């Protein structure tokens, strides 16, 4: 649910107004998240595992702390006790329901989740897209040993991305359908060809145009294969480097995630 409260709106419209809380938030981030750069204000906003939200005059940030395996929720406001109030507002008064954030989402309804139709909140779509790419990269990183022994890797979220070695080449397969498991507004849809290609290019990075080709077998429906030459002789080394770039949220040169 929090994934629907995106950073861009807070960054552009709200954060500049919350002058007094910014130093405190920065200190808190530094204490809880030692690798945060902090030299770049709100650098975390483009990380796929970090989200901010806003409510009234208060602002907050949430991220999954993978080292500690917890989800941090920070509440802060430019008014006395405002952060505490926001924190309390995050939890349903009925503890039996055990549900977070009922007051934060104006579209909240008990019958469904908060996700909205595509293109209703373009910034949210863009960040969800980054999260999808980031998730795949992390998954490929975790399972790289399987890839090296010849097992294909298959990342499944709303869509499917598969990575396999083909002798000296690599093959990345992108499913053309996004299917969401939640009961929210129906967002299932087909990716456009441009979006499919963007998934591939975002994952592989600045690959020379001569060294990749799309291939769709005549019998295939629902996926596109990309065959490519890893930019380095050692595919493992290339994958390591590319994944590190993605996890550091370094966009592909010339890419514009908001485009999708």
């Amino acid at each position, binding site marked *: 649910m929090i994934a629907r409260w995106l950073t861009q709106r807070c960054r552009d419209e709200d954060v500049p107004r919350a002058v007094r809380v910014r130093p405190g938030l920065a200190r808190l981030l530094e204490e809880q998240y030692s690798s945060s750069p902090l030299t770049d204000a709100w650098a975390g906003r483009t990380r796929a595992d970090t989200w901010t939200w806003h409510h009234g005059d208060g602002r907050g940030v949430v991220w999954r702390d993978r080292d500690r395996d917890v989800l941090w929720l920070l509440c802060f406001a430019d008014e006395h006790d405002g952060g505490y109030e926001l924190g309390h507002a995050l939890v349903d008064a009925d503890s039996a329901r055990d549900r977070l954030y009922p007051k934060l989402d104006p579209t909240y309804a008990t019958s469904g989740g908060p996700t909205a139709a595509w293109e209703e909140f373009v910034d949210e779509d863009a960040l969800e897209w980054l999260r999808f790419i980031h998730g795949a990269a992390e998954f490929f990183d975790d399972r790289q040993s399987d890839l090296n022994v010849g097992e294909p890797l298959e990342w499944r979220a709303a869509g499917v991305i598969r990575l396999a070695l083909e002798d000296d*080449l690599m093959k990345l397969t992108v499913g053309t359908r996004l299917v969401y498991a939640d009961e929210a507004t129906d967002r299932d849809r087909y990716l*456009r*060809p*441009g979006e499919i290609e963007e998934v591939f290019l975002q994952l592989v990075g600045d690959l020379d145009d001569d*060294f990749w080709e*799309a291939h769709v077998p005549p019998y295939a429906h629902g996926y*596109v294969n990309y*065959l490519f*030459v890893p930019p380095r002789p050692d595919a493992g080394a290339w994958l390591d480097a590319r994944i590190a770039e993605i996890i550091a949220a370094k966009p592909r040169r010339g890419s514009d995630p908001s485009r999708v």
Partner: protein
Amino acid sequence: MARTTKSIRFAEEHQELLKLLAAFEGLSEGELVEHALESFVHGRVLAYRKTLGLSRDDVDVRIEDAGELVARLRDAMVRAIAEGAHAPSEDEIKAGLRERAAARREQAVAEAAVPA
């Protein structure tokens, strides 16, 4: 849309399937083939894009609008066929990639051998 008669030969079981499917879908056989062609082209257009010299924007069409894609591809396909091009097979793609990768390696070796 103007429709004309086109006589094509294909397997008997598929002719029967065409009649059954058209009846089942409530479409004419021609409409069904039209939909199938558009769907086929949309599903494979990324594999055609480079060969046809099209940009990503040219092919970035929703599946619901696949008919637009067919119209955009027509001229490019006519040109490509006239130049002897065809949709490459997976083996041809792999061979081409390997060839270019080998050329790149040879070039790198040659450049490294040139004294500074």
